[in-house]
């Protein structure tokens, strides 16, 4: 058998391959030769073969069949074999293979070898890839070597100990005695690795940390070593650009950071040296800046005095102006860490940070963006937002989503005026509209709804934006929703903030229909536009056109669109009398507690998907047996959530009758807008609506009994209120109305409505029926839930409609005689 080719020969040969296929062929041939050589248990050439195998492994070819051979090499007496064997073990083996445990004995022997370089190989391998089992078995040997006077071995043993501790933290204790005099070494290698070992121990165990701090008095020792390093003269073997052993200096600073953290005495003891390093380090080269950087991190993390902190932040400020990109990058990163604790100091560098937004480097831009958002506050919002919006315009797509979210958050927190807020949102939607996150759409809709006085302005601007561009879905969705809601303001040209545009109803409908047919619109967007068109049927006069559109889509392939269209069609046909009330203006929405993605309404224990628009139709109380199609909209729950619609300053064309209910009920005389819950809107659920929605009214009266009262009694109709307290929330009063009829004729189509003052919130559940039988033969019951967080006196205005003996009856009444226990 000819001798296997040498390693360098093989490398040369493989490099001559012109194609991947050619290379593969060569490698396969050589692997076959190596395999047969391994099979023959050839001791002489094993080393050469394994070396070749390692080369091929680096090229990406499998080499697992060499694993056992590495073990054989390690066991060999020849140093050459051991060297390659250990290298192979580190490259081909790890703790996942059971084979690796076979190494343990060899390593143990080699740790006690007479030649330090063999011991070194063993320590190195153990310290790089030793598994927990190996570490457990060999920790004793490592500990022994940690106490040797041979600095070559001692430094390797120290890092090996670090690895052991990382793998098996329980073994930390056993290394403690050996650390006693580690720092009195002169050898820098030992010093450095000792500091690493001490750092590892302090980070992992608070007890160790205390021990080193108080008992061993580590801080003064470290300070002394650091001082010597700085003051000592030139040492050629450790010098880097005029600085003596920067690696050791940085490592000591890092350990000082851990020791000084939340400890006044230690922080005090290192004050001087930190100041000295901070002021005297040469900053012309990267190495000096590396030390300064670590110093700054340490100063900011320990309990340093304020002068030192200011010094640190100023160093970072200087870093920001440095020509070197790397230094600017680390400055931004560090400032980001400190902005929470030293906000004012960082604010001083705001303009430099904002300039970094224009940097060409991607990493720097990202850091600058994050830091800019952290620095936005009420005072600088206008200026900062200008810069950030400019950044949003021109930045790479990878930033746009984060930047847009950041802008929305900042605008929400610090907007100086509603108009500014809406303008900012518009700007984001028009410039980065397609990158805006999905949950922003409902948030924006809610914001717009709640900015009552800006409705006309908003819808006008959104309409104009739509005319320009319909490709950005979030923008289109928000716009369609607004046009659906406030289309009447649009055509009536009522804008105060800017020049009102002249637009006709047909033009508006053209735009919305255009969205429906456009290829750019997603199914969700189409849903929005269809619903918007539908809503305009109560706001515009061109109802026929709308009817036509709706009926076309009732045979749409898209199931969602089809369902909507069918139901809207039903609204036109069978339930036309409900249409005005259903399509009324949305009330002000309450923001849910969480700022996360939109809250999903819990109905009967199942969550509904938050497709906002189908749920945006407010429903008037209806007996459960009517309008089943509409109930299906909500997923078929048997509870019909109800809103008392409240109208802002301008009454909608329809539903005016409900407005009167609220005429002067508000306690503070502000706009008569009672924030009523809109349960079908995912965003706006006050928590109490979710409580117990799955169960019917709580009839188990576990709280102190509140006496019932007669709320209304007229013309033979008597309405009694009985009370329970909702257990989960004592601010909620649960009232059950019992309507009875003493006359001889039934009262049919009975509808009970109620409204409460501004500080309350009301929910009406569905009534048991809508016929109040004559002669007290039965009653209609209905549950009202009132949230009264401010515990104010409960007042209610009720409206009753019914048909009696063929003629419709309607009555309004105020209920003021609530017993005190119901609201206290």
């Amino acid at each position, binding site marked *: 058998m000819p001798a296997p080719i040498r*390693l*360098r020969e093989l*490398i*040369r040969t493989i*490099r001559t391959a012109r194609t991947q296929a050619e290379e593969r062929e060569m490698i396969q041939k050589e692997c076959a030769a190596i395999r047969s050589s391994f099979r023959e248990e050839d*001791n*002489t050439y094993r080393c050469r073969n394994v070396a070749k195998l*390692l*080369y091929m492994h*680096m090229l*990406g070819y499998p080499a697992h069949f060499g694993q056992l051979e590495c073990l054989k090499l390690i066991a*060999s*007496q*020849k*140093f*050459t074999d051991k060297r*390659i064997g250990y*290298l192979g073990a580190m*490259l081909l083996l790890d703790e*996942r293979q059971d084979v690796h445990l076979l190494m343990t004995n060899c390593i143990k022997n080699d740790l006690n070898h007479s*030649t330090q*370089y063999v011991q070194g190989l063993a*320590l*190195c391998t153990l*310290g*790089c*890839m030793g598994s927990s089992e190996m570490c457990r078995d060999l920790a004793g040997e490592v500990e022994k070597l940690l106490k040797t006077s041979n600095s*070559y071995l001692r*430094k*390797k043993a120290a*890092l*090996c100990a*670090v690895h052991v501790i*990382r793998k098996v933290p329980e073994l930390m204790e056993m290394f403690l005695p050996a650390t006693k005099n580690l720092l009195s070494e002169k050898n*820098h*290698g030992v010093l*450095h*690795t000792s500091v*690493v070992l001490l750092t590892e121990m302090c980070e992992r165990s608070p007890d160790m940390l205390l021990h080193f701090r108080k008992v061993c008095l580590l801080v003064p020792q470290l300070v002394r070593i650091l001082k010597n390093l700085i003051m000592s003269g030139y040492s*050629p*073997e450790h010098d*880097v650009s005029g600085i003596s*052993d*920067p*690696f*050791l200096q940085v490592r000591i600073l890092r350990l000082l950071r851990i020791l000084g953290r939340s400890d006044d005495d230690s922080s005090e003891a290192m004050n001087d040296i930190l100041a000295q390093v901070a002021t005297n380090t040469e900053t012309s080269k*990267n*190495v000096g*800046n*590396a030390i300064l950087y*670590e110093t700054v991190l340490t100063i900011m993390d320990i309990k340093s005095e304020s002068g030192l902190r200011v010094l640190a932040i100023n160093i970072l400020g200087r870093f920001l102006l440095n020509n070197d*990109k*790397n230094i600017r*990058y*680390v400055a931004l990163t560090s400032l980001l860490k400190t902005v929470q604790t030293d906000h004012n100091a960082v604010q001083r560098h705001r303009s430099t940070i904002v300039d970094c937004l224009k940097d*060409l*480097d991607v*990493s*720097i831009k*990202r850091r600058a963006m994050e830091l800019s958002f952290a620095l936005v506050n009420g005072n600088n919002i206008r200026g900062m937002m200008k810069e950030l919006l400019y950044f949003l315009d021109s930045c790479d797509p990878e930033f746009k989503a984060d930047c847009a979210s950041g802008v929305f958050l900042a605008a929400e927190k610090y907007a100086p005026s509603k108009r500014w807020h809406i303008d900012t949102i518009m700007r984001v939607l028009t410039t980065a509209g397609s990158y805006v996150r999905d949950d922003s759409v409902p948030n924006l809709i809610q914001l717009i709804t709640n900015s009552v006085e800006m409705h006309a302005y908003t819808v006008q601007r959104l309409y104009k934006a739509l005319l320009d561009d319909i490709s950005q879905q979030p923008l289109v969705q928000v716009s369609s929703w607004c046009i659906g809601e406030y289309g009447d303001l649009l055509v009536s040209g009522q804008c105060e903030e800017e020049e009102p545009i002249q637009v006709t109803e047909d033009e508006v409908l053209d735009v919305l229909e255009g969205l429906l047919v456009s290829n750019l619109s997603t199914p969700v967007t189409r849903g929005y536009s269809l619903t918007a068109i539908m809503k305009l049927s109560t706001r515009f006069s061109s109802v026929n056109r709308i009817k036509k559109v709706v009926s076309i889509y009732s045979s749409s392939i898209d199931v969602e669109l089809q369902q909507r269209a069918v139901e809207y069609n039903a609204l036109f046909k069978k339930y036309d009398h409900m249409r005005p009330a259903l399509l009324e203006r949305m009330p002000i929405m309450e923001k849910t507690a969480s700022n996360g993605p939109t809250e999903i309404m819990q109905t009967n224990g199942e969550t509904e998907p938050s497709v906002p628009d189908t749920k945006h139709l407010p429903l008037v109380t209806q007996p459960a047996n009517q309008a089943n199609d509409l109930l299906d909209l909500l997923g078929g729950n048997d509870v019909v959530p109800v809103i008392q619609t409240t109208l802002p300053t301008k009454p909608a064309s329809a539903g005016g009758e409900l407005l009167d209910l609220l005429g002067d009920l508000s306690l503070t005389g502000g706009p008569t807008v009672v924030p009523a819950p809109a349960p079908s809107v995912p965003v706006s659920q006050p928590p109490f609506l979710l409580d117990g929605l799955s169960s019917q009214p709580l009839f188990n009266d576990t709280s102190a009994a509140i006496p019932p009262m007669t709320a209304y009694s007229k013309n033979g109709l008597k309405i009694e209120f009985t009370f329970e307290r909702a257990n989960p929330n004592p601010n909620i009063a649960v009232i059950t109305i019992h309507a009875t009829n003493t006359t001889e004729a039934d009262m049919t189509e009975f509808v009970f409505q109620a409204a409460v003052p501004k500080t309350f919130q009301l929910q009406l559940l569905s009534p048991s029926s809508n016929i109040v039988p004559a002669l007290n033969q039965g009653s209609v019951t209905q549950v009202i839930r009132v949230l009264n967080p401010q515990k104010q006196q409960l007042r209610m205005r009720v409206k009753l409609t019914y048909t009696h003996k063929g003629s419709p009856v309607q009555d309004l009444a105020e209920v003021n005689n609530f017993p005190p226990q119901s609201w206290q």
Partner: protein
Amino acid sequence: MLRFLLLFSRQGKLRLQKWFTPVTEREKKKVIREMTLMVLARPPCSCNFLHWRDLKIVYKRYASLYFCCGLEDQDNELLTLEVLHRYVELLDKYFGNVCELDIIFNFEKAYFILDEFLMGGEILETSKTAVGIAMEEAETLQETMEEYMSKPTY
């Protein structure tokens, strides 16, 4: 600590890989591919630091080779640049004006030098000369061809 150190050429060919934590072969290949793509895509005058998963990536180009390593959150990026530089200096001292070919043909030596400089992701020796001395002395222990043949293996 360093998590890994990779050396690769401008064409993305791997010249050295050192992993300081246990990583599967598959994961190694994935990381190498991602590092190569990310680093080679960087424009020439960008900063040497990147963010990737939960690690900081520091890379530096020396002639035709990219030196790339992954750091943990606590590590000092600027100092790591010095670490990479020190390694290149050590290679340079050993090989005499080191170039990529030296590392290709003598990859095992490159590993030996690395193992005298770093261990377990931490710096083992800060002295420029100590590493060179250790390499020299270890070399003397390596058997010549005759010695190798005549000495019994076990």
